[in-house]
């Protein structure tokens, strides 16, 4: 900056007070009322709370979908199990969870107790909180009840849409979840959870079975295996499900 400009700025300095006070006295500049700031703070707080509750809901819904499809148990079958598990993840929900988590971080970043922490630490705390809340809700019968109502067309359209097929990942073709209807010499027959169809499950000495579990009629099981007939599956592994 040249000396002339510096001189001009210096001359302007005493004028600042006069100019600002003149604007205030003549009413050209007015104070925003306190309620304006209280309203903004309240809106941000309510918005952040809404986003947090939505995150709890979406995380718990994802966990419910994974439980419901039986995919929750299949990583224990090793590489093949993990592959099927990844295909079972409701990725649309996961995407929404990431978007909402970023939104939550942005909303709460204005608070000193958040911006005083590193971005990574505050993000990690948010992730822990939403997973804890999500798993707590998933442990309640809430989603099971809602899915039941959705199956019986007793939910309003937006909720029925959520519990329908739209958000669920398509079931992996090699995972079968159902209740044992009858036992056979080489395995058992399961009926799927909706009672819509049966599948015959064949077990051989290479099938991965949990120790000490008696697969009797009425046991809820998850089976990973290859279809060998129209309704027959050669089991790669079987796990008892608590759903």
């Amino acid at each position, binding site marked *: *900056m040249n000396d002339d400009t510096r001189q001009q700025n210096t001359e302007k300095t005493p004028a600042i007070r006069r100019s600002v006070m003149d604007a*205030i006295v003549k009413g050209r*500049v*007015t104070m925003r009322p306190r309620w304006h700031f209280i309203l903004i703070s309240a809106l941000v707080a309510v918005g952040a709370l809404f986003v947090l509750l939505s995150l709890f809901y979406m995380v718990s819904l994802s966990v419910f979908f994974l439980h419901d499809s039986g995919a929750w148990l299949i990583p224990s079958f090793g590489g093949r199990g993990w592959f099927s598990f990844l295909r079972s993840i409701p990725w649309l929900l996961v995407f929404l969870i990431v978007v909402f988590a970023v939104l939550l971080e942005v909303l709460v970043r204005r608070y000193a107790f958040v911006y*005083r922490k*590193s971005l*990574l630490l505050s993000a990690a705390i948010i992730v822990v909180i939403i997973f804890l809340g999500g798993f707590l809700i998933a442990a309640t019968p809430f989603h099971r009840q809602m899915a039941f109502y959705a199956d019986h067309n007793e939910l309003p359209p937006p909720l029925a849409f959520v519990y329908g097929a739209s958000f669920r990942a398509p079931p992996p073709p090699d995972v079968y979840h159902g209740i044992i209807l009858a036992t056979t010499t080489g395995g058992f027959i399961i009926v799927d959870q909706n009672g819509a169809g049966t599948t015959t499950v064949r077990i051989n000495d290479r099938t991965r079975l949990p120790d000490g579990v008696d697969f009797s009629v009425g046991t809820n099981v998850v089976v990973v295996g290859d279809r060998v007939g129209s309704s027959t599956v050669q089991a790669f592994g079987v796990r008892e499900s608590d759903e």
Partner: protein
Amino acid sequence: MAEETDEAIALRVQAGDGEAFGELIERYQAKLSRYAHKFLLDPDDAADIVQDIFIKSYQNIQSFDATRRFSPWIYRIAHNEFVNALKKRQSRGTVFTIDFDTLFPHLTAPDTADSAAIERDTRASLDRYLDKVSPKYREPLVLYYLEEMDYKEISEILQIPVSTVGVRLARGRAALFKIAGPQPLYE
């Protein structure tokens, strides 16, 4: 009689005493002008920007919590105005994009016996080389060495972790010393 605090004056303004705001302008005009000149590197419109800061401060004074200190509050408004001014100047992008300094937690180094010498050297090189340091590191240097704010106040103004203030100051000092080169910083 003790001088009335900034917070007490701000309370009077909040209560409707508009004239009291003049006292706050009196107290902060020189400081904010210096902050503007050092951070924005003697902009032609420094006086206009400082005037805008006072106008915004008056408009938003009801958002000031009088149980806290007034100076970080008004400096926060100044910071926002300056960042906007820098954004306007730059033809592309934003001034601060993804800030990796705030991404990870940092440990703040404790003061050592060398601290006083480093501080003396930094102060000596500020006048000569500050304009060559990037705005991201220039601003904490200005706030710490020229405005004499502490880490916590700078953290409040920039809304970054206290440890990140330490990191930026260290990097700002390193940049200053690198620019200054091996020659003595002051004779």
